[in-house]
């Protein structure tokens, strides 16, 4: 009877689901297009990456379906354990011998041939924790020591650990999501401004400490100064975009994926889309993300309880920011970060966590305004 009620009284957001499916399909096709030659070169098997990605896609849809059936209120219960597990795993990563290092960054655990990127999970865990914590403390939201201090401490610990990997990009997203959720919960703007005022100089110091970050920043400001060296990646990305023009060179015909673009199937997948699909292809992708983000915030907007709203907004923001920063980076609007494009880039952890986010959002969308259904299901 309760099940029937949930189906009839609250339908999950079909638009969100459709957009997600389209993005995943585009991603799968483009991962094959961009990775096959690299896979051939590296593993002697052009299907190496796509075979793994298809497994991740199936797994992702499984996770999404499963999660969409879990009433979102349950996530409150795992808020503290999730925060603890995040800190524990991040700590484990910096202990030599546990993590797997790729390209100078230790971001993965490798168990039985499957890589797991911790920070992808931590982003979601942070949102769940903050949504739960802020819902409980909402009445005293304006008090600095009672409400602001504990999450700030957790954030700083996580940031410290993430920066050890190092993963400056994820750290930036964490800070922004953190501020966004406090803003939504009604925190004093002065705290947030204060946080920003501290974070920006801290970030500047971090950039100047690491020579590669400084180089990235300088090459971002003027990539053409050294087109063969530091500016190489971003210029190759520009060339991909320009080469694609309005309508693209056709799916599969990218020349830039032939070792001109670094990581064409992960970080620079949008560049391959831009070359093969042209401006039209890029607009389609940006519009799909816009719809996804719009639906995510609409779900939050329509949700009746604070936890659901904060959860929906926070999770949407994780995807929205991840997508924006990646796309802005490959177009030279922000410095390159080493962040993947949600749904489209190759990578198991990222895809599965994104699908999980969609699952949670679908659940929130199907239960809006159904106080008793929620209670019943819980």
């Amino acid at each position, binding site marked *: 009877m309760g099940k029937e009620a949930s189906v009839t009284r609250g339908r999950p957001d079909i638009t969100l689901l459709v957009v997600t499916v389209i993005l995943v399909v585009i991603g799968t096709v483009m991962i094959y297009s961009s990775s096959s030659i690299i896979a051939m070169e590296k593993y002697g098997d052009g299907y190496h990456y796509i075979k793994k990605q298809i497994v991740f896609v199936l797994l992702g849809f499984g996770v999404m379906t499963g999660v969409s059936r879990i009433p979102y209120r349950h996530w409150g219960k795992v808020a503290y354990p999730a925060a603890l597990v995040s800190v524990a795993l991040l700590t484990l990563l910096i202990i030599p011998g546990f993590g797997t290092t790729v390209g100078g960054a230790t971001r993965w655990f490798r168990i039985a041939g499957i890589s797991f990127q911790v920070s992808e999970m931590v982003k979601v865990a942070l949102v769940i924790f903050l949504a739960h914590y802020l819902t409980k403390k909402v009445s005293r939201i304006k008090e600095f020591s009672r409400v602001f201090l504990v999450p700030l401490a957790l954030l700083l610990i996580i940031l410290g650990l993430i920066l050890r990997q190092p993963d400056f990009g994820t750290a930036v997203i964490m800070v922004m999501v953190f501020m966004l959720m406090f803003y939504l919960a009604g925190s004093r703007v002065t705290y947030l401004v204060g946080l920003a005022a501290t974070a920006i100089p801290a970030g500047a110091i971090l950039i100047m400490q690491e020579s590669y970050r400084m180089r990235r920043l300088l090459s971002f400001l003027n990539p053409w100064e050294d087109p063969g060296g530091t500016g190489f990646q971003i210029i190759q990305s520009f060339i991909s975009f320009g080469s694609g023009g309005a309508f693209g060179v056709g799916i599969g015909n990218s020349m830039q994926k032939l070792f001109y673009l670094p990581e064409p199937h992960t970080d620079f997948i949008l560049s391959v889309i831009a070359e093969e699909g042209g401006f039209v292809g890029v607009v389609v992708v*940006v519009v799909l993300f816009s719809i996804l983000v719009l639906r995510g915030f609409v779900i939050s907007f329509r949700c009746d309880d604070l936890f659901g709203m904060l959860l929906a907004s926070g999770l949407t923001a994780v995807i929205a920011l991840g997508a924006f920063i990646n796309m802005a980076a490959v*177009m030279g609007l922000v410095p390159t970060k080493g962040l993947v494009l949600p749904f489209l880039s190759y990578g198991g952890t990222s895809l599965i966590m994104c699908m999980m986010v969609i699952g949670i959002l679908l659940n929130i969308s199907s239960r809006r305004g159904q106080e008793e259904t929620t209670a019943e299901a819980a």
Partner: protein
Amino acid sequence: MSAKSRKWLRFRVASILVFSLVLYVALVSRAFQLQIVSGETLGKLADRQHRKSLTLYPERRLIFDRNGQQLAATVMTDSVYVDPSTAEDRRRVASKLSSILGVKKEKIVKALANEGSFRWVARQISPARAEGIRALNLEGVHLVREPKRFYPHRELACHLLGFAGLDSIGLEGLELKYDECLKGIPKKVVWGRDARGHNIYLDEGPGGAVDDRSCSIFLTIDSKIQYIVESQLRRAVEGLGAKGGSVIVMDPRTGGVLAMANEPRFNPNDFSSYPADARRNRAVTDCFDPGSVFKPFIVAAALEEGLVSETDVFDCENGSYVVGDRVIHEAQSEKFKELTIPEILKYSSNIGTVKIAERLGKNLAHRYMTKFGFGSKTGVDLPGESTGILRNPRDWREVDFATMAFGQGISVTAMQLASGMCAIANGGVLMKPHVVRRLVNKEGATVKEFEPVPLGTVISPETSRKITSILTGVVEGEGGTGKNAHIVNLSIAGKTGTSQKFDFTSGKYSAKKVAASFMGFFPAQDPQMVILVVLDEPETSRWGGAAAAPVFKRVTEQILRCSNSGMDVQDFAAVETVGEARIIPASTSITDMVYPDPEEDETVIPDFQGMSLREVLRMAQSRRIEIKTAGTGWAVHQNPAPGVPIEGNQPCYVLFDREG
């Protein structure tokens, strides 16, 4: 949650949403800027790194003389280029290449320091060097087969042929005029390249089958006559200390050029080491005042118009005739009293010709000059032709018109003179001179045949016969100015000419600098060849009759000997070498044997014929030949014959004779 706080919460969610969408709009704008606004520029950068292309020129077609003798051929040579992106150890590669090619090491190091994947190091190298490079098998050093233009007979017909440079581009002469036809359509090969330098084949565009419409050309030139003309011209220019000269041999019936030679000449295989002056085809590019050779045209016009008849007698004023403010004299201070028209031409009387011209009148004279082709291009299929200068009759003063009658104050090219003479010889029709007879495609089929083109009738056949007979008297008559061109048993019509050159520095006609010429045709009863000889500033003998007529005679004699004895004339083709390798051009006819040119080859007996004693001795000394002489004058006979290899101390007997 209170309604008010919920409202605020929703406001904040909405604000974040709007902020996010603004960011996404920014992304689209940026993509628009990159892909649409800067798309073209970035696309070009993309093409530059993705595409490699090479233009392949089809093998340049050949040039043959009228008998199928190859005059311009194409041989395949090797060229060396380096690929700096794959070359290892620049210094080692450079020093190895340098030792084989003889190219400076620094130059190769510099080529290797370039970006990209293609830099020429040396082009069209010898087979031995190519073999050396191939044996080294160096990474990043490549050889490509490239066609090189090759002129097997060296200087022969050099001004006609012109030359083609690197990449088989015609730069001068027929190579330039018929460049499109000879070179065919270049093919552009494009392929892709990945970031690691591997080549990828792009499946685009129509690749292989390009319509090859290139043609070989067959000339009207007879290389035997051409050779005779060139060697005689050279001998005359050297013997007389002339600055240069031109000879044209034409078939008056068709307008086909059988030979065209100039001095100084050049070797088109090595064209860049000659001054531009030597490369100019002065027979078509240079103008000069023709002098007395121009008189027959005036006489022909007057006869045609019926204004004079052969028996008319003109008072030649005893050597001085006042026209306007000037006194006209005869050449060499001759004084004539009364002369008939044949006598006027025979003795080349200036005053007589002026009087004939006066009967003709300015306008008719101008009309006939135009009809004979003076003052406009003849239309010969050679580049750089001049029009000459024929002013408007309204601008002629009396004295201008008078001097023009004997060829001073009108400027013509040798080509115009020869083609005008053809019209007199062939019964009165001006033919368009041409050098190319037909175009033949790859399969050997004739694509185009150039038929003789009549440009108009100038005089009647009757007038033609009259003037021919008069001109025969110039050569054969007692005391005729053209007697030095006389050949026993051959009826030759001709006219001598000696014109003062206009000195641009002093603005006057120079008494010392002259152009000596002879223009004639034979046999007079059925003209088959018109020959024009022009010698520029001969030093030792300045009169057309003395300097140019003997050249005409020797050329005619040798042509006759050549045609009387059929094909047994030994071919004279010099053998040219490419690099160190000797290449024998493939002959198109089996009877065409390749003999070394006795003029060039130092190991054989030279052809002494026509040389003075002093010249014979000088040449003999340079080749260490012992000479035994008999008689005086010019060499007329020798033993052993020219072309025989020099053996030890065997002497060469040379007979000299005054009569030549």
